[in-house]
Each structure stands twice: as structure tokens, then as C-alpha cells.
């Protein structure tokens, strides 16, 4: 087993699946829009054009305007930035914490393992969205607390996903060899075991991003995520409900954006799983 991630081979195999290629394209488009929102959007996302309230899509306002005369297209692009910030930070935190705990549990075994994993099991006793809701309810609404809630809810999944492969890897000869020549435990975990458990982690990260995106949007929809006037796809959809008969265009684009983003990460995750999991490969 080699100690490095075979990135090149992954890429080639991912592109062999058309659906995974589509997923990658959607994810890249999402990243591009999120990073370049400031350059691409024609107006400021919070600038109010008092004379142009509730305009249907036209050549000046591509996706129309909302009840304050704000350009929906610009809000949509900046919504991607906010969504990306929350989802990536939350998933990064969940990956780091969950994987660390899962690796320690799997590597140490015994009582530590039991204690960590039973603690993680507790989080599985809640419907995920409900636990996130409870945390945000206690801490108060806002992007920072949304990040925390998503990270806490997803951490146990990374602990579970990383623990299993650690158990299998730590019994291998090269780990025993490393231990014999006196390599210390943290180094064994980082240099010898971690590179061999990355495959399931990468798949999980992609699926976690899709879930985090949906959760951020849900919490914002319920008025508990990103605070107004900052644009968020979830709160844009929530705002559209009051004016649904008057300005139906407000309800279309944010939902479509969420769906494409989630679809992208799902397809990419499925493709990565096919490419990385030898058992599923045809």
C-alpha cells in the first residue's frame, strides 16, 4: 500500500462516469460563483432601488427584484458566497474533530474507544436537523452558530467513518514495523495510518458538504441562519413566501440554486465512492 493519495488515478476514474463529471462541473461552477460573486454581480446585494420594487425578470434585473428593490441575481451570487463560507468551515471543523476522535478511538481501542464511540452514538439519537435546530435555538441565530451546529451534528459521522479503516490499518505489518523501529504514536497515526484511510473520508466530505448546504439553507429559511440583510438562499426563499402571488419569480431561483449545488456534491460523492471503493467497482 502506498503512502500517498493516488489523486491522478481518482481523477481519471471520476471522469469516466458522466454523472460524476456533471457533479464536478456543478461543484466547480458553485465554487467559481461563490468566489467571484463580487466581480460577477451587477449590483450590490443589499443596495435598495426604491423605484424598481418587485420587478419581474428583465434586461436590467436578470432575475427580477424583491420587495426592497434589491437585485435578485446579485443576491443569488452573494448567497453562494455565504453558503460556501458556512458549509466549508462547518464541514472542515467536523472533519478535523470527527476524524481525530475516530482515529484515536480506533487506534487506542479499549475503554477510550468505547467512551468516544458511545458518546458519538448519542448524537445519532436525534434527527440531524432537529439537533442543529436545538443548538442554534440555544446559542441564537447567525452564521457563526449555524457553522457550530452543523459541525457538531456531522462530527460523529466522521468519527464513525474514520474509526473502521483505522482498525483494519493498524493491524497491518507496516504499522507494526513502524512501531518496532520506535516511531511515536502521533507520527504513526499521521504519517502511516491517515494516508490509508483518506478514501472513505473524501467521499464523506463530499456528501457532508451537500448536507451542510441543505441544512444552512433550512436554518436560514426558518430565520435562524445567516442574518438579514446578508443574502442567503434559504432566507430569500422564506421572504418570497409572503409575496408568492405578486412576485412568483422570487421563489424560483434561490431554490434552483440550492438544488443544483446539493445535486453537484451528491453526484461527486457518488462518483468518488465508485472510483475509490474497489468493492463497488465493476
Amino acid at each position, binding site marked *: 500500500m502506498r503512502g500517498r493519495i493516488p489523486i491522478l488515478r481518482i481523477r481519471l476514474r471520476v471522469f469516466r462516469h458522466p454523472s460524476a463529471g456533471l457533479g464536478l462541473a456543478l461543484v466547480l461552477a458553485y465554487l467559481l460563483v461563490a468566489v467571484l460573486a463580487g466581480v460577477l454581480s451587477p449590483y450590490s446585494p443589499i443596495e435598495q432601488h426604491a423605484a424598481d420594487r418587485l420587478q419581474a425578470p428583465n434586461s436590467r434585473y436578470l432575475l427580477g427584484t424583491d420587495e426592497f428593490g434589491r437585485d435578485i441575481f446579485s443576491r443569488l451570487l452573494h448567497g453562494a458566497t455565504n453558503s460556501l463560507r458556512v458549509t466549508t468551515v462547518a464541514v472542515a471543523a467536523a472533519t478535523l474533530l470527527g476524524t481525530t476522535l475516530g482515529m484515536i478511538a480506533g487506534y487506542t481501542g479499549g475503554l477510550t474507544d468505547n467512551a468516544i464511540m458511545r458518546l458519538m452514538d448519542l448524537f445519532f439519537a*436525534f434527527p440531524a436537523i432537529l439537533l442543529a*435546530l*436545538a443548538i442554534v*435555538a440555544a446559542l441564537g441565530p447567525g452564521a457563526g452558530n449555524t457553522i457550530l451546529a452543523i459541525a457538531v451534528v456531522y462530527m460523529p459521522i466522521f468519527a464513525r467513518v474514520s474509526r473502521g479503516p483505522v482498525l483494519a490499518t493498524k493491524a497491518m505489518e507496516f504499522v507494526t514495523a513502524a512501531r518496532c523501529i520506535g516511531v511515536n504514536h502521533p507520527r504513526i497515526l499521521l504519517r502511516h495510518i491517515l494516508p490509508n484511510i483518506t478514501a472513505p473520508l473524501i467521499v464523506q466530505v463530499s456528501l457532508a458538504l451537500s448536507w451542510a448546504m441543505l441544512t444552512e439553507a433550512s436554518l436560514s429559511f426558518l430565520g435562524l441562519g445567516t442574518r438579514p440583510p446578508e443574502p442567503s438562499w434559504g432566507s430569500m426563499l422564506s421572504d418570497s413566501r409572503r409575496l408568492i402571488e405578486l412576485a412568483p419569480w422570487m421563489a424560483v431561483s434561490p431554490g434552483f440554486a440550492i438544488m443544483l449545488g446539493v445535486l453537484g456534491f*451528491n453526484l461527486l460523492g457518488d462518483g468518488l465512492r465508485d472510483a475509490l471503493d474497489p468493492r463497488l467497482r465493476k
Partner: protein
Amino acid sequence: MRRFLIQRLLAFVPTLVGISIVVFLVMRLIPGDTISAMIGTQYKLTEAQAAALRAYFGLDKPLPEQYLIWLTAALRGDFGYSVRSGQPVLPEILNRFPLTLELALLAMMIALAIGLPLGVVSAVKRDSLIDLSGRLFALIGLALPNFWLGTLLILVLSVVFQTLPNSGDYTDLLEDPLANLKQMLFPAITLGFAFSASILRATRSSLLEELQQDYARTARGKGLRERRVIAGHCLKNALIPIITIAGVEMGYLFGGAVIVEEIFTLPGIGRLLLNAISQRDYAVVQGTIMFIAFNFVLINLLADLAYAFVNPRIRYD
């Protein structure tokens, strides 16, 4: 089988204790002073008044003691009183629960009615046009946020049919079943749509696996028609794992109901929770979350037992 039953039932108790600890601790995450968070910042309390309230709610005691007091009360069915209405929490939850349960059950029925047959056809006609459209449906279903689907349904209803699903008060199922089902239909579709997609996927992959098993080959080898092989042999085995999935999803439907009840303004426990969150009515928030988590764990337990019951490999163990 008996050992399995005992094991599962024994695991149920520590899980409940665990979730009660999590719920209790999460509610103690409230930043700053709980009393002023509850009362609101518009009222200025003197230090003595705040201390009196803190003593009244038992907030001056150490955390473990507070937890034990709360837990023993909760075990007696006392989840405290709503700060807003002054009413006890549990009766209010039980009063609203039937609606949420009905919504989840209807959603599950819709999900099974769509997902199971499509999944079977997709597996049997693998790589056909039907299979491809089934898989496309599943992909979209899993990516479609339920709050967007709900909003779009309301949009279509209001613009095309000039009617809103919930213009008017909620009608109880026992009062007028037809009017009630009319009100619940679109919320149930909204809630069940994503789950029909995951049921479809699970049914398809489970049946595909069974169709490749040795016993399926034997059945074909002895001259059975493919239809009999599928319906008589493979389908039975393929549906066993679906029970587990349906059970887990049923639990998640309670989480999703929070959003769907909000969109369609249905007075279930989801909206009770959201209203309590916005009014900072922490006893209600705590009680509602505990109640939903309890049901979530209970349904998972029932699904496990049902799985063991229909799966001969566990039954005869």
C-alpha cells in the same frame, strides 16, 4: 431471537438517558443569564428579583442536581411550564402530536407508494429508459429541498388553481376526514418526496443484489419464469432491508415535519417548537426536542424489531 430482543430493549434505556443529558446540556448553552434570556431584555430586573426567579426555576443549584431534578420530573411526565402561556408543556405537546404523526405517516405512505414500485421496475429493467428516468427522479428528489418544493406547490396552487391549501383553519381528522386529508395532501407530498427517492434507490440496489444471488440462478435454472423468480423469490428478500430504511426515515420525517408545518401553517409540534424558539420559551423547546428524540429512538427500536421478525436469519438465531 429472544437474546436479540433483550439486547435491544436494554440498549434503549441508556440511549434515553444519553439524549436527555444532551438535550439538557444543549439548553444550558444559552449564552449569558438564562433568566434575562427568558424574560427578554425589555424588562429590567433588580438583582434580588433575578435571584428570586433563579431560585424559583432551580437555576442556582449545581448542574448535575438541576439535571436530576429535571429528569425525575420528566419521568413523571412533568416537562415544566411554558413561560409564555403558563400551561404545562407535555399536554400541549400531546395535543399537537397527532397532527405531526399523521403528516409523517401520510408522507411515508406516499414515499412507499412511489418509491417501491419505481425501484422494482428500475431494477428489473436495468439500464432501460425507465431505469434511467427512475434514477434521475431519485437524484432530483434527494437534492430538492423540501421547503422549496413546498413553496413551489403553494405557488402552483395559488397561481394556477387560485386556491391555497390552508386558507382557513386546520380541520381535525376525526372531525371531517375528507377536509383534513385535503389539507394534509400537499404537506405530505412535500415531506415524502425526498423519501420516495431514497426508498427507490434502496429498493433498486437491494433487488439488483438479490437477482444475482445463487438461489435466483437456481430458480431460473429449474425453469421458473423470470416473473416468478422476481415476485416469488427475490422481492421478499430484497424488501427486508427496506424495513430498516423506512424505520430510520420515519424518524427523520419528524425532523422534516418542523419545516413542512411551518410552510403550510399546520399546528403540529414542529410549529410549537419553532414558535417556542422565537419566543425563547425554553421549557417548551426542551420538552419538544426531548419528545421528538424519544419518538425517533422508539421508532428505530421498532424498526429493528420488525427487521428481526421478518428476517429468518435473525429469527432462528
